């Protein structure tokens, strides 16, 4: 089976059990916390991916770090995936979990790139506009980048809504170059 399918299977079944026990939100928070810790600790990441370290040992280490910080459901899931010798997929599966949860609940994460940071009212306006277009709840992650000169660029997965000045200028350049003299 391809790894992508495998990851999706783990993430989906984890999500399903969470829905059954109505603990999705709580677990999602814990998962985000777990990913954060992983991102901060490269050694921990390496340990999980290392095939030489036995699953029992991996579980022991994780237990020591996260004991009492995570719920029973999450703990069981960690046990399952590690004992199945799939600890190397853990990070991706957890990321996929968050993504699938957002998808099911109709939440879209939008990466908004702007030249000047918008104020609260503007931000709200943008959020409403994008939410209307997508028909989903929108979570905005705002980045500042002076390269776009003005306007905004919103990215939702692969889709780009480009209203930047840089893009307009590029388009004008192309149109002008097309003119045959």
């Amino acid at each position, binding site marked *: 089976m*391809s790894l*992508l*399918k495998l990851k999706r299977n783990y993430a989906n079944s984890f999500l399903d059990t969470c829905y059954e026990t109505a603990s999705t939100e709580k677990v999602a928070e814990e998962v985000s916390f777990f990913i954060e810790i992983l991102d901060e600790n490269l050694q921990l990441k390496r340990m999980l991916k290392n095939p030489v370290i036995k699953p029992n040992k991996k579980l022991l280490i994780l237990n020591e770090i996260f004991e009492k910080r995570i719920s029973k459901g999450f703990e069981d899931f960690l046990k399952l995936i590690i004992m199945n010798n799939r600890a190397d997929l853990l990070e991706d599966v957890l990321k996929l979990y968050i993504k699938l949860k957002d998808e099911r609940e109709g939440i879209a994460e939008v990466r908004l790139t702007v030249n000047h940071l918008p104020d609260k009212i503007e931000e709200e306006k943008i959020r409403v506009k994008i939410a209307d277009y997508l028909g989903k709840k929108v979570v905005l992650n705002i980045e500042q980048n002076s390269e776009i000169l003005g306007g905004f660029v919103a*990215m939702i*997965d*692969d*889709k*780009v*809504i*480009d*209203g930047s000045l840089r*893009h*307009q200028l590029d*388009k*004008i350049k192309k*149109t*002008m170059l*097309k*003119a*045959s*003299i």
Partner: protein
Amino acid sequence: MNQVKPDEITSILRKQLSGFENEVEIYDVGTVLQVGDGIAIVYGLSKVMVSELVEFPNDVYGMVLNLEEDSVGCVLFGDSRLVKEGDTVKRTKRVASIPVGEEMLGRVVNPLGIPIDGKGTIELKTYLPIERKALGVLSRQPVKESLQTGVTAIDAMIPIGRGQRELIIGDRQTGKTAVAIDAIINQKFTHTKEAEALGIKPVYCIYVAIGQKSSTVAQVVAKLKEFGAMDYTIVVAASASEPAPLQFIAPYSGATLGEFFRDSGRHSLVVYDDLSKQAAAYRELSLLLRRPPGREAYPGDVFYLHSRLLERASKLSEELGGGSLTALPIIETQQGDVSAYIPTNVISITDGQIYLESNLFNAGVRPAINVGISVSRVGGNAQVKAMRKVAGTLKLDLAQYRELESFAKFGSDLDASTQRTLSKGARLVELLKQGQYSPLPVEKQVVSIFLGTNGYLGPIPVSEVKRFEKEIHEYMELKYNQIFKDIRETKQLSDETIKLIKQAAEEFTKVFSK
């Protein structure tokens, strides 16, 4: 140098800008994960279609060929060094297509329709996809009109009909391209007023050069220009230095151009020169895309690669305008091995093949067509009636000659009938020799073959046969022009015409031998 006024430039730019829309644009993107050898693996582009054009930075375009679970495999039509890891790839939402129109005639373009002859841009609005599905059974009708190649041996024994697929196969340096170029040059007649009066519809030609040297392509273009054939010809060139993906799509682009003429009720002739190089280009990019290799390392769908291309050759039904697309694919064999993978595939797809052999070529038989194993499966119905009448015995005579040829060295020890067969055969072989770029009109071909098969060449020495043929044509043009006129107009060989030919031949033989 022409002066360009600043006012003029301003007005042009203003015109361009007037259509400019200042709107927020929505597009789909992906990220380049890996690039090299003309292939890019892209992450993202989740809704992309197969064979869609995608835009890389620096004006490099690519085509999507592989859709995988977590990535998309693209082939690049430009320099892969201009694309870097992490670059953004944009969808264009249109499948790879080529502009079509009459304005393309006389031009040399690359497989994407961009002119490469330095004569400026071609302004065309209509784009047609490069990969189109071949028409079904209902939209077709049997091949019924002849396509004269001007090569006597072909028009007499391996006749090609409009809408047919006739393979030209042979080793390197056997004159494969020459046959195809002659066929293109011979279509000049179909564009004349005279042909129109005779009800012969013009044939537009497309010459697709795949993986050839640019110098060879330039030479072909120069020759076509010299003979006035570029006026009705489009050359699609993906030379050896172009990336493999361009060589791979070149024949499809040519077919699309041909289909434009076909679908507007006209006739077209597309020469694919040559498909072995296209198969090699396809093998290259398939291996790079990690598709599993099969026999001779070609991918599994190499048969489909050629069958879907050649299926696009067709004769449309009258309801659809009755246009046609004739395909002349060329395959290069290695040391005469026609049982290699690609040659057998293409032989099985086409409606017949013209075999060119290097030993015939070296023996001075040019065009070096081996008429014994060359066939045309559907062209017979389309052959001009007069030609069918005279060529009937030609194939038989030549077959008998070939059987006895090895005895020729015994000379006078042979019995009279064998000697007669040998002498006739030698003269017929000589008669079918023809110089390059000198296509013969059908009426002259008919007369030549009539003379050959009816023993009028008997008294002429073999070395004089070609001169005799040329001069008798001239003689007839001057004194018995009625013969050519009759055959041309009625396409039949009436008893009266036969009588006239016999009379002219007898008269001329007397003059000639003196």
